[in-house]
């Protein structure tokens, strides 16, 4: 493999959960950008496909001391011994050395779902059904992203298509480096609360790198040593504590259909 002559980047994001209102604009904008279809009638919150999912977290106190935050969880783009990469039998998952983005190649995926088991953040989604859009709505699909078929796993890739477009624009202008304003993932662009900051963590003077290093920033499940590139910020201590816990949500699911 030839060594890349491009400067290495490490794209990541910082999400301020104290600003997030849980509106869901990021989830919906992601689905628009990445051609994720509307839910099958039988889909539930366990079988639905949401590349970024916003969870509601409570502080465990009784009313009226209850407090909540909303936590958007995309793929964390783990940088150290990326769990989903090592388990994939098809080499359908790869860490891009130039950007640090963990890419998923649905065309190679055979749907064993081993990566879903390996992912500690539950950030991977299996296509239980073929994609179906209401009649005519397929005209609104993004031409830069291929729809996936039933039987493959998919996940957030930091809107890799937008990175390619930014690189093409930079190359056309004869530049080596992209303009940060040209590469903004759909969720970041859509957030009306301005809760998500995105950029190159390897450049110390970028807003995302400064926020990631500053007081109050944390990552989820740090003890697993996966080196995720998604940081979170909150002034509330209970949120920091919650980030270190794994949750077993025990609920009898009412099976539909």
């Amino acid at each position, binding site marked *: 493999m030839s060594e890349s002559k491009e400067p290495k980047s490490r794209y990541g994001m910082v999400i301020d959960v104290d600003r997030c209102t849980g509106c869901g604009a990021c989830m*919906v904008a992601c689905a628009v950008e990445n051609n994720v279809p509307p839910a099958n009638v039988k889909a*539930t919150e366990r079988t639905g496909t949401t590349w970024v999912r916003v969870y509601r977290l409570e502080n465990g106190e*009784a009313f009226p001391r209850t407090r909540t935050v909303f936590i958007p969880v995309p793929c964390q783009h783990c940088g150290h011994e990326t769990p989903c990469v090592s388990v994939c039998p098809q080499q359908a998952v790869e860490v891009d050395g130039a950007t640090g983005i963990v890419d998923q190649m649905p065309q190679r995926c055979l749907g064993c779902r081993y990566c879903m088991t390996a992912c500690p953040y539950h950030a991977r989604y299996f296509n239980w059904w073929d994609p179906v859009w209401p009649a005519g709505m397929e005209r609104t699909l993004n031409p830069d992203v291929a729809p996936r078929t039933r039987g493959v796993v998919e996940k957030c890739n930091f809107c890799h298509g937008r990175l390619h477009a930014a690189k093409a624009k930079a190359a056309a202008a004869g530049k080596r480096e992209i303009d940060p304003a040209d590469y903004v993932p759909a969720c970041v662009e859509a957030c009306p609360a301005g809760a998500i900051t995105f950029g190159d963590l390897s450049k110390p003077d970028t807003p995302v790198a400064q926020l990631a290093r500053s007081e109050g920033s944390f990552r989820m499940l740090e003890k697993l040593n996966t080196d995720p590139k998604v940081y979170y910020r909150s002034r509330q201590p209970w949120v920091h504590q919650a980030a270190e816990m794994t949750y077993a949500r025990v609920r009898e699911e009412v099976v539909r259909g």
Partner: protein
Amino acid sequence: MSVSRRDVFKFGAGSAAGLALTPLPWKLLDDTSIWTQNWSWVPKVPRGEIKTKYSACTLCPAGCGLKARCVGEQPVSLAGVAAHPVSAGRLCPLGVTAHHVAFHPKRIRRAFRRVRQGEKYACVPSRTEDATAAVAQAIQKGSRVVVLDGRPDRTASLIYRRAAASMPNAAYVPVRSEEGATLRALAELTGAAPGTLAFDWSGARTVVSFGTPLLDGWGGPGQQLEGKRLIQVEPVLSRTAGRADKWLAAKPGTEAFVALGIAQIRTGEGMALADVEAITGIRKEDLEALAREFSDQGPSIAIADGGYGPQEVRAVAALNLISGCIVRRAGIPMPAGFEELPAPAELASLPDGSVQVLIAVEPYGLPAALVKRKLAKDALVVALASCLGGLTRRADYVVPVPAALEAVCDTGAPEGASAAAFGIAGALMPAPEGVADAAAFLASVVPGLPAEEAVLQARAEAIHKSGRGQLFRFASGEASAVKDVSAEDFWTALNEGACWTDTAPAAFKVAANPGPAVTLEPPKADAAYPVTALGSGWRAASGEAPVSPLLTKIYQESELRQASDVAALNPATAKALGLEEGREVRVESRAGSATLRVALDPGIMPGVVRLSCGPSFEYAAGAADPADASLLCKLGDARTVPVRLSRA
């Protein structure tokens, strides 16, 4: 050489082991993955020239600026317009997917009639001309006609008002949303003309919100609260309460008494704190702290746009007369010929059974029980809608109109803006053939009505003639004074993506006397229906308002938002009633009942059940079904409804 059976097996096993060491099986597995993903039924992406166009979202009155990425003439994604003076580049989940509404599974493209067949109704194809003829005949007989506007305060609404004024026995009735209730009450208290008052958001330091979803759809995506202290008064930990600096959990139906407590401390006219504490459940110390904050951390805004009754809103609105954070804004200049129109009527004030012809424009989120009471027996109902839902289920004729982004219309200033604003939401997609807007339908009934586009242009001319304000162009992000732009350029810029904002409004001098006292009655306990049902909804997504099918991401596929088949309870309430999460619960009121699914939420006050007002993703329901799908319409029309819960 003889080859034994054992040799064959040995060769076979050796070949298999050898093959596994080659790339061949992995290559075949890889190729099989690819071959089994190229099915003809997986949609192909569109191809074409990529363009950028600008418009505005019209799904709610906020009118947020839109930047559309288009493949050919079809928008494929929408984003906010950076530096937009009103929406500040923000969009809510509805705005992000506004271009999907045109493809909604319940989209209406042809007119139809509902005809009774025995006990049931059937839908038969019809023509717009048949509906027109039926209405014209009824008008000739002198029937009482009401034009019910589901999307009021637009330029098209002026045409509907003119149409009603031109008919011999007709009234124009806007469907008032909760948003703007406080300012309407303030106008009544001060004698100001309706629509001329606004909150001074830039001048305010503190906002005391009574049940108003300021961070969840009210007035646009919430930018007016930046840098301000927010205190939220309501019985549940809503999205707004969760982000507020302080949340005061008042019992449902008692929030306005908190306003009387603040008034008592600041002016001596209100209600004693001990009484407020007994009614609301909020401690006296917290009420005192709130009153101090309201004055000491002012200027302050008090707002109650949460679906409260008139007296409750009035009690809260009066607080703004103490804090002095109101401005008087000039209205958007009227186009010539529309300056003198009769005042709109209110739905509640129409006599019961008096409406003989109802022409309902985009009637999705109506108070169905109230509308039904006002209709005469055998009333003729014509619904003008882009999608099935709401009143289309009861209409005799349903006539299609363009969906969002299919026709030109205007946007104004949301409640979160202090100055008046005006913009044109240009059409990004063509409407289906034969589908015309509601103004065109009314023009076929009332000859001489102008077309909507002509009135929009006349309005733009009136604005330009005033010489006030600035024109902000979406593409360049630049603003220029209106007086520096020609009338022709002004109209062209608006159609290509721009908005006008008025000059800063003047401070409103508050009268020393705040007006007549309000009369509030604390909610009475109902032993038979001991739990209080509280409706929660998202303004533009309530009832059966058409929203993108992709919103399943935040409902069905994640349960981020409460679906309309869910009853959310405090765990203590559920335990006391023997209810468990995920199980069915029967919710009964004096008006009706529903069977829902339990969800537990410790942020809900014990003794309260939160129900969702929509949206609906039930695409299979038939057009002829007269049942109203809106849950709260089944249980009652008020903001809080006494109910009882039992295991289903």
